[in-house]
C-alpha cells in the first residue's frame, strides 16, 4: 500500500510538473517536451528523498490523513426543498442530494482522472449490459441507511432503488429523459436491479452517475411514510447525515460512520469521510462571503476573478486551485426557422449574428483573463461549440471552435462586425426591427450583465434590435423557451447532464428542445441517431464532432460564451487533499469532500 501511495504521488507530481513546464515554456521559449522531462526527473528525485508529503498544496495526502474536524463552506441560499426529486434547484441537488443520498454510480475522482469522465459504483457495486438496452446493477451489500428513525440503519435493497425510480418518474420535473428511455425497472433479488430500456442507450450509466437524477430513497420514503421535505425525514445512504437544519443560518451534517469507502492511511484503514462535520453557512451577500473567508469563518471560497489578487495578498498562505465552469450552454435561438416569414430562416442572418459576438472580448471583460495572467493567475477559458458547450463534464465531446478540426465552419466564429453587416445586406435585411427576447433576475446578476453587454454588439453589427426583457415564469419559460416567439431569443439551455441530451433534444425533430430553432437537416438527424447506438467511444466522439461542424456551419443555434471562463478556488492552508480529487457539479460532497482532511491541532490530538 505504501508503494502504491508513492506511485500516485509521483504520477501527480508528473502531472503538475507538466503544467509548470508548459508555463515555463511559454515564458522562456524553450520546448515543452525538453523542459518537461528535465523538470520531471528532478522532481521525481525529490519525491524519493523527501519525507512523506504533508503541507499546503494540491498533493494527494490521503496516506497522511487524520480524521476529525469541521469543514465550513457556504451556500448562497437555503435548499428550496429538502427532497431533490421535488425541486430542480442546484442547491437542493448539491447540498441535500449530494450529501445525504447515494446514486447507483458516481464520478470517479483521483490523481490524473479527468473530472466527470469515469463512472464508478456508488450504491451499485457493478453493472453489466449485453446490448445497451438491458442494464443489470449489483448493489453494494451492507449499504446502510443513516441511523435515524424509522429506518434505524436498515440495509439498502433493490426494492428501494425500484421504488425510487418509480417515484422519480411520477414526480420529478427532471423525469423527461427517463420517460423517453426507460421501459421498466425490476428488483430481481435483494441486491440486483434491472433496467430495461426502450432503445439501446449506451450512455445510460452516465445518467445513473448524474447528480441531478436518480437519488436513492428508502421504500418507506417513496411510499410517503417518511416526509422527505422535513429535516427529520432526510434519511439516505450517503456519506453525510443531516444533523441540524437552521434555515437562513446554517445546514450542518455529521459524517456517516457506516459509509462504504475505506482508504489506507498511516494509521491503518480509515473509513471516509475523514472529517467529522460539514457545515454550510447561508450567506447570499458576496461582500459578506469574502469577509467571512478573510476572517477564517469559512474554509473555502471561490471569489470573483476581480478579487483574486486581493485575496491572495490578504491571505498569503491560502491554497488555490484553478477550476473550470460547469457544462452549460448560453445560446441564441430563432424560433421556427422553417417559417418563411422568419428573418433567421436565412443562414446568412444566423452567421452574421455569430460574427457580431466578440467572444474573447466578453470573456476578457467578465473573466479578467489577461489582467490575471499578469498577476500570475492562469485562468482557463473556452468557447462553446453548438450545441456542445465547453466546461467540466463535456470536455471530451466538445470540439474547440478555434481548432483547425472545425474545417470551414470555424470561420463563422470569427468576430467581424463588418463582415456581419455584409452578410446582413446579402441576406436582404433592411433594418427591420427585431425583438430580442431574454429573461432577467432568475439566472443572477452576472447573466443579466452578460446579456446587457451583448446588446451593443448586435447593434454594432447592424441588427436593429428591440430588447424585450421577459418575466421568467409567465413569459419566458412558457413562451419563448418553448419556441413560441418572433425575432431572436437568448438564454441558457437546460443544464443537461449527458451529451446525447444536447444533441437529441436540440437537433432531432422528436427532441424536447427542437422547437427552439427547428433546424432542418436530415443528415444531422441521421448523425444524431447514429451516435446514440455507437458503442465505440472514439467513433462516437467522431460522430459528435461531425455534428458540431455541421451545426456550426448552419448556426441553427448560435452559441454565446456566458460563464466560459475559469475561476480560482481558495482553501485556507490547513485543508488537505482538495487538489487531487477534482470533480464538478452537484456531486462534489460525495465525490471529493469525503476525502478532504484538516491539518489542524484538533485533529492531531486524536
Amino acid at each position, binding site marked *: 500500500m505504501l508503494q502504491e501511495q508513492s506511485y500516485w504521488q509521483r504520477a501527480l507530481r508528473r502531472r503538475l510538473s507538466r503544467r509548470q513546464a508548459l508555463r515555463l515554456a511559454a515564458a522562456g521559449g524553450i520546448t515543452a517536451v525538453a523542459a518537461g522531462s528535465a523538470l520531471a526527473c528532478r522532481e521525481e528525485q525529490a519525491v524519493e528523498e523527501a519525507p512523506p508529503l504533508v503541507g499546503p498544496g494540491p498533493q494527494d495526502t490521503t496516506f497522511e490523513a487524520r480524521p476529525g474536524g469541521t469543514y465550513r463552506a457556504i451556500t448562497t*441560499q*437555503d435548499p*428550496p*426543498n*429538502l*427532497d431533490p426529486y*421535488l*425541486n*430542480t434547484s442546484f442547491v437542493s441537488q448539491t447540498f441535500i442530494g449530494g450529501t445525504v443520498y447515494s446514486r447507483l454510480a458516481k464520478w470517479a475522482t483521483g490523481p490524473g482522472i479527468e473530472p466527470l469522465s469515469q463512472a464508478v459504483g456508488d450504491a451499485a457495486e457493478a453493472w453489466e449490459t449485453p446490448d445497451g438496452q438491458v442494464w443489470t446493477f449489483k448493489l453494494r451489500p451492507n449499504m446502510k441507511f443513516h441511523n435515524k428513525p424509522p429506518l434505524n440503519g436498515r440495509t439498502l435493497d433493490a426494492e428501494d432503488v425500484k421504488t425510487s425510480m418509480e417515484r422519480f418518474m411520477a*414526480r*420529478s*420535473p*427532471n*423525469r*423527461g429523459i427517463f420517460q423517453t428511455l426507460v421501459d421498466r425497472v425490476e428488483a430481481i433479488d435483494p441486491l440486483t436491479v434491472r433496467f430495461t430500456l426502450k432503445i439501446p442507450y449506451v450512455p445510460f450509466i452516465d445518467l445513473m452517475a448524474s447528480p441531478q437524477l436518480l437519488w436513492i430513497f428508502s421504500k418507506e420514503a417513496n411510499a410517503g411514510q417518511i*416526509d422527505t*421535505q*422535513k429535516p427529520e425525514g432526510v434519511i439516505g445512504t450517503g456519506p453525510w447525515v443531516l444533523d441540524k437544519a*437552521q*434555515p*437562513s*443560518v*446554517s445546514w450542518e451534517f455529521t459524517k456517516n460512520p457506516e459509509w462504504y469507502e475505506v482508504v489506507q492511511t498511516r494509521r491503518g484503514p480509515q473509513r471516509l469521510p475523514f472529517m467529522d462535520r460539514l457545515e454550510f*453557512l*447561508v*450567506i*447570499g*451577500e458576496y*461582500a*459578506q462571503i*469574502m*469577509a*467571512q473567508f*478573510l*476572517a477564517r*469563518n*469559512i474554509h473555502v471560497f471561490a471569489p470573483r476573478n476581480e478579487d483574486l489578487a486581493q485575496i491572495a495578498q490578504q491571505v498569503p498562505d491560502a491554497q488555490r486551485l484553478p477550476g473550470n465552469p460547469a457544462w452549460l450552454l448560453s445560446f441564441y435561438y430563432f424560433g421556427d426557422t422553417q417559417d418563411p416569414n422568419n428573418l433567421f430562416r436565412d443562414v446568412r442572418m444566423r452567421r452574421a449574428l455569430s460574427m457580431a459576438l466578440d467572444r474573447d472580448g466578453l470573456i476578457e471583460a467578465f473573466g479578467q483573463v489577461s489582467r490575471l495572467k499578469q498577476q500570475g493567475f492562469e485562468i482557463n477559458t473556452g468557447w462553446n461549440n453548438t450545441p456542445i458547450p465547453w466546461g467540466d463534464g463535456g470536455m471530451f465531446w466538445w470540439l474547440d471552435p478555434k481548432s483547425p478540426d472545425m474545417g470551414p465552419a470555424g470561420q463563422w466564429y470569427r468576430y467581424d462586425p463588418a463582415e456581419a453587416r455584409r452578410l446582413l445586406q446579402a441576406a436582404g435585411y433592411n433594418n427591420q426591427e427585431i425583438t430580442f427576447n431574454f429573461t432577467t*433576475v432568475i439566472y443572477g446578476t452576472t447573466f443579466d450583465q452578460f446579456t446587457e453587454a451583448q446588446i451593443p454588439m448586435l447593434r454594432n453589427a447592424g441588427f436593429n434590435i428591440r430588447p424585450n426583457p421577459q*418575466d*421568467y*415564469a*409567465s*413569459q419566458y*419559460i*412558457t413562451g419563448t*423557451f*418553448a419556441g413560441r416567439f418572433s425575432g431572436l431569443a437568448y438564454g*441558457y*439551455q*437546460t*443544464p443537461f447532464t449527458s451529451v446525447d441530451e444536447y444533441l437529441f433534444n436540440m437537433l432531432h425533430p422528436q427532441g*424536447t428542445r427542437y422547437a427552439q430553432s427547428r433546424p432542418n437537416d436530415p443528415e444531422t438527424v441521421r448523425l444524431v441517431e447514429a451516435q446514440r447506438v455507437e458503442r465505440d467511444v472514439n467513433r462516437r466522439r467522431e460522430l459528435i464532432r461531425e455534428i458540431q461542424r455541421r451545426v456550426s456551419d448552419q448556426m441553427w443555434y448560435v452559441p454565446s460564451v456566458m460563464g466560459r471562463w475559469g475561476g480560482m478556488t481558495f482553501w485556507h492552508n490547513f485543508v488537505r487533499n482538495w487538489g487531487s480529487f477534482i470533480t464538478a457539479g452537484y456531486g462534489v460532497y460525495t465525490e471529493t469532500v469525503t476525502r478532504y482532511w484538516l491539518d489542524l491541532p484538533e485533529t492531531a490530538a486524536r
Partner: protein
Amino acid sequence: MQGYIVRRLLLMVPTLLGVTLFVFLLTRFTPADVVDRLTGEVGYQDEALKAQIREELGLNQGVLTQYFKWLGGVLHLDLGESFISGRDIWDELKNRVPVSVELGALAMLFSILFGIPIGVISAIRQDTWLDYLLRGGSILLLAVPVFFLAISVLAVGAWWFDWAPPSRYTAPWEDLQNNLAIMATPAIILGLALSGAKIRLTRTQMLEVLRQDYIRTAWAKGLSERVVILRHALRNALIPVVTVIGLQIPVLVAGAVILENIFLLPGVGRYLVQSAASFDYPVVQGITLLIATVVVLSNLVVDLSYAALDPRVRY
C-alpha cells in the same frame, strides 16, 4: 376607554380580512404561475406533471374555496405549508419572528436614545451652527438609502478595518454576546434611518413647548435648565414623538427586509424576499397578514399611549 379598545379591536377584523383577500386575489389572478416556476427549464413541457403539482398545491380548486380554506386554517393558527419547501409556515415563522422583533426593538431603542437627545440639543441651541449641523444631518439620514449605508459599512469594514460581522446568528438565550455582535450593526444602521424623523419632530415640539407659559413660569421660579428641559418641557414635547414611533413601524419592517438579507439574520424579512422571488404564495400571504396585524395593532397602541401621556385626551 374599554369600550373604545373593544371597538378598535373589532374594527381590526374587517381590515385584516380585507388585506388577506387583496393579497389572495392578487396571487390567484397573476399572469405568473408558480407551477411554471417549479418545473423550470427542465419540465416546462410536462403538462401532466404540472397538472399533478397544481392538484397537490390545491391550485385546481376555485379561488374562493382556496381562500376560505386558507382562512379556516388561519383561525387555527395554521398558515398552511410552503409551496416551495413543503414545510409548515407557522413553524418557520416561530423561529424567525423573534429575530425580526429583536432587530426592530434594538433599532427603535437606538433611534430613541440617539434621536431624542439630539433633537433636544438642536432645539436648545436653536439657530447656532450646531443646530444647523444636526438638522442637516437629520435630513441626510432621511435621504440615505438604508441599503447603501449597509453595503458601505460592509465594504469599509472589510477593506480598511479587517472587520466582518459574525458569520452565524445565534438566539440571545444561546449566546448573548454573539447575538448582540451580529445584531449591532444592522440595528444601528436601521436606528440611524429611523432617527432622522425623530430628531426633527423632537426639535419642533421642543421649540413649541419652550414657548409655552408654564415653561416661562418654570424659568421664573429659578429652576435649573436641566429641570426645566427634562422634567417640564421634554415630557410634553414627547407626546407627538410617540406617535411617530408607531407610524414608523412600516419603515422598520422595510428596513428589516433589506438589512436581514445583508447581515445574515434569519428573520421574517429574509423569508419574505426569498418567498416572493419564488412565488411562494402561502408564505407571502402569511407574512403579509402577520405584518399587517402588527401595523394595525401598533396604530392602536399609539392612540392609547396618546391618552395615557396627554391628560387632555380621553376616549
